[in-house]
């Protein structure tokens, strides 16, 4: 009978354990399924390949395009990968279990988003120089490109996750996520591509990076709460 008494443990070790376990699980899932992992990268690369073919192979012209194209590609890649963030959990019933866990929901959510970012945003950032080279981005632009992506993509993941949480489980209207999230992405795109352009032309880019950082801080503070609330709302119908 001892077993079933009200036991109110101190939860903080449980919380860090949960955080780590969730990250581990997400990584495992991605490495097993691989597609989630590779898809955004392939998309990213594809854009870099298709542009010279479709628009113009001329280096000077491409160089002008490069900052914007890389950023647009990163944004689209993140957006397209957002959709699956909660979908598979919803479909196999894991999401219900998640919502019924006594642990704070936003921890799991944050862990999921961070893991997701590491496998998309971070990977994109590391791959960006390759794209830069393919699109003849001047070498001076590279640090700016990578730094801006490093600061900008987590925001994209966090904001995208809100959209994913709001639309999970929708039978009709399914992937509204693009429509919901896109307007919110625009500031990141603007600051990000401006930072790269500034870096290319040799202007100081600290201001842009600070702005991206501020956006990130804001998103980090508010998004996990919004995501948790949205998940509860979506499931409760």
């Amino acid at each position, binding site marked *: *009978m001892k*077993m*079933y008494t*009200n*036991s*109110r*443990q101190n*939860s903080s070790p*449980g919380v860090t*354990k*949960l955080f780590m*376990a*969730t990250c581990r*699980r997400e990584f*495992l*899932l991605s490495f*097993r*399924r691989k597609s989630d992992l590779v898809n955004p990268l392939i998309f990213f690369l594809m854009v870099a390949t298709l542009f010279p073919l479709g628009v113009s192979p001329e280096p000077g012209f491409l160089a002008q395009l490069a900052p914007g194209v890389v950023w647009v590609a990163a944004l689209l890649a993140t957006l397209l990968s957002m959709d699956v963030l909660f979908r*598979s959990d919803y*479909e*196999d*019933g*894991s999401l*219900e*279990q*998640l*919502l*019924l*866990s*006594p*642990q704070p929901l936003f921890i*799991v959510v944050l862990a999921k988003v961070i893991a997701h970012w590491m496998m998309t945003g971070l990977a994109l950032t590391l791959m960006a120089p390759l794209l830069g080279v393919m699109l003849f981005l001047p070498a001076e632009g590279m640090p700016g490109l990578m730094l801006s992506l490093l600061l900008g993509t987590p925001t994209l993941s966090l904001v995208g996750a809100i959209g994913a949480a709001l639309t999970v489980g929708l039978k009709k209207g399914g992937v509204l996520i693009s429509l919901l999230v896109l307007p919110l992405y625009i500031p990141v795109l603007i600051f990000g591509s401006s930072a790269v352009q500034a870096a290319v032309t040799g202007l100081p880019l600290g201001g842009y990076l600070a702005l991206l950082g501020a956006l990130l801080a804001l998103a980090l503070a508010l998004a996990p709460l919004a995501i948790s609330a949205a998940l509860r709302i979506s*499931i*409760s*119908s």
Partner: protein
Amino acid sequence: MSEPLLSVQKLFCERDDRVLFSQLSFALAAGEIVQIEGQNGSGKTTLLRILSGLSRNYEGEILWRGEPVTEVREQFCRDMLYFGHQAGVKAVLTPEENLRWYAALSPAIDAAAIPEALEQVGLRGFEDVPCHSLSAGQNRRVSLARLYLSQAPLWILDEPFTAIDKRGVAAKEQLLLQHAQRGGSVILTTHHELGIHGPVRKINLDQLAGTSA
């Protein structure tokens, strides 16, 4: 056992203008097993989702140890195990990895007990096989292993015996009985004739529907 664990008062739910149940009241004491009965579409799953707190599409009151469940949500989640139509098993993970994640979700579960739980549900030798290579029943068993791990007094089980073979069903029934004897309680639905000779109470939803429609 003076105070019931869970008590439900005047529960009302409708879906698409069809009243599923109204004025549904019952109490669940420690050590009791309640089987929700009713034909397909009578609202069993809906009821269990409401009780577990997944759905808020209802009117009425649900009390957990005498307090409204909405106010003691965290404690309630700690004390409850929910098993739904969907098993919650990730196809690309192995049974062990799947359970490890459940262990992290509820702080009371001890991850060291996982191999034994898998053994209990007859999945020895399949610990390292990804779940998509398991049969339908084996997939359900992965999720059922949570019952062997759980420390929660209240189990809410929605058709736990789906796709399980006869021997497995008998073992699970035994487990439910043990759980009740240790002072836990169970609410379950199943279309299967329960072979438990114990404190099983039945609530039939077919009669409740339409009372106020």
